[in-house]
């Protein structure tokens, strides 16, 4: 009766910690799993309660003053005796030991091994998209000419992203930008679609090609993900999922 995901993956999804592909996979799972749908509803409700309740407690002003004064003394004064240092280190080691023993191992899950800690999450992709829409951030090089945009990346990244204009297909190239996703530099290609903007994030990968992954959505934004010829792509926008899929196909052709 109990779905394995409701106690694990679901929370990573709720917290925006899944990469785009796994988030989309989980959304497909949600469509058929009543338990996960219910659990997610409860977890979201709990989160908004926590946010509404304003439980955050800020430090009293007096504390800040006290610490400043102590720092002044400490910086001016002599160093402490090494004996005290060792006592503290021993205590710290003891705590680590106790913590390590008490905190028993909990089932690992494949969706988020430490290796994928460096991969990109859906929340990051959407944040990057939203950031880019704020004034003056959309493009570093504004040009509809792929022969201007592509060389612009040369020397700024350790790879050269594929750049094409799809004006005739209804996706005019607007420009390019450097961005950061999951702590690595990526190329962002900006396309127009009627009055909307699409960010296509590109970075190199050693993984094999994958087909265009069914769209995921979050906060009203959609994204699709695919890998093609050593590059990983994530297109994100508020346009329809179908439009994104169409653009993705143009990249693969």
């Amino acid at each position, binding site marked *: 009766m109990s779905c394995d995901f409701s*106690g*694990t993956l*679901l*929370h*990573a999804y709720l*917290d925006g*910690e899944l990469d785009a592909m796994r988030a989309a996979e989980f959304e497909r799972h949600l469509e058929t799993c009543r338990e996960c749908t*219910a659990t997610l*509803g*409860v*977890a*979201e*409700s*709990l*989160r*908004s*309660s*926590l946010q*509404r*309740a*304003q*439980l*955050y*407690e*800020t*430090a*009293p002003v007096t*504390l*800040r003053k*006290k*610490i*400043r004064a*102590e*720092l*002044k003394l*400490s*910086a*001016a004064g*002599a160093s*402490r*005796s*090494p004996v005290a*240092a060792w006592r503290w*280190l021993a205590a*710290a080691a003891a*705590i*680590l030991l*106790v*913590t390590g023993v*008490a*905190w*028993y*191992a*909990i089932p*690992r*899950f494949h969706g*988020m*091994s*430490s290796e994928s*800690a460096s991969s990109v999450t859906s929340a990051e992709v959407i944040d990057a998209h939203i950031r880019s829409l704020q004034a003056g951030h959309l493009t570093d090089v504004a040009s509809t000419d792929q022969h201007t945009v592509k060389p612009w990346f040369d020397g700024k990244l350790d790879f050269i992203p594929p750049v094409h204009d799809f004006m005739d297909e209804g996706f005019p190239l607007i420009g390019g930008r450097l961005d950061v996703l999951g702590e690595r530099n990526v190329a962002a290609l900006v396309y127009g679609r009627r009055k909307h903007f699409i960010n296509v994030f590109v970075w190199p990968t050693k993984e094999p090609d994958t087909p265009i992954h069914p769209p995921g959505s979050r906060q009203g934004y959609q994204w699709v993900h695919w890998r093609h010829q050593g590059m990983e792509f994530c297109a994100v926008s508020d346009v329809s999922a179908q439009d994104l899929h169409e653009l993705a196909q143009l990249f693969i052709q």
Partner: protein
Amino acid sequence: MSSTGHAKGWDVLDSQDRARFEQLVLPHLDAAFNLSRWLLRSRSDAEDVAQEALLRAFRFFRGFNGGDARAWLLQIVRNTCYTWLEKNRQVELMTEFDEDLHQQSAANPETLAIAGDNRERLARALETLPVRFREVIILRELEGCSYKEIASITSVPIGTVMSALARARQRLQRALTQPAQQEAPHEL
């Protein structure tokens, strides 16, 4: 904790270090206080412990490698809190993992919303959670830390952060919808 175990003892820090510390670390005093307050469930104890942690952080400051200052500080704060709990409320650290995993929560979003609308009740429910579950909720929901940051603050793998959060949320829901449950010992 960072690699500050010089055999010669504490680093001697000068006024330049202090200026850098005030610029990089002191802005996270609220985060330090908030975490202490919820781990210790007391404002006055939190004041003492947060102060101690900040001074400790200053003495270790040379070991700070310039990464995420908030996560670095919160790791020290957390360890200082645990030391304090061990000394003053050892029972709290012992009676932790008695949970019944098979007990299903009957919560639904509506009843939860009603229960959760009461700040006092929510705070009390949070305080009944074992400290290791409480800390992930505080770091995630109040401090807005990523799993990676929580993992580094609490020194556990990222997968463990996720399952701890899952169980912490489940427990919190239960505490909110079944208010009659016994409370953890508050004062000894």
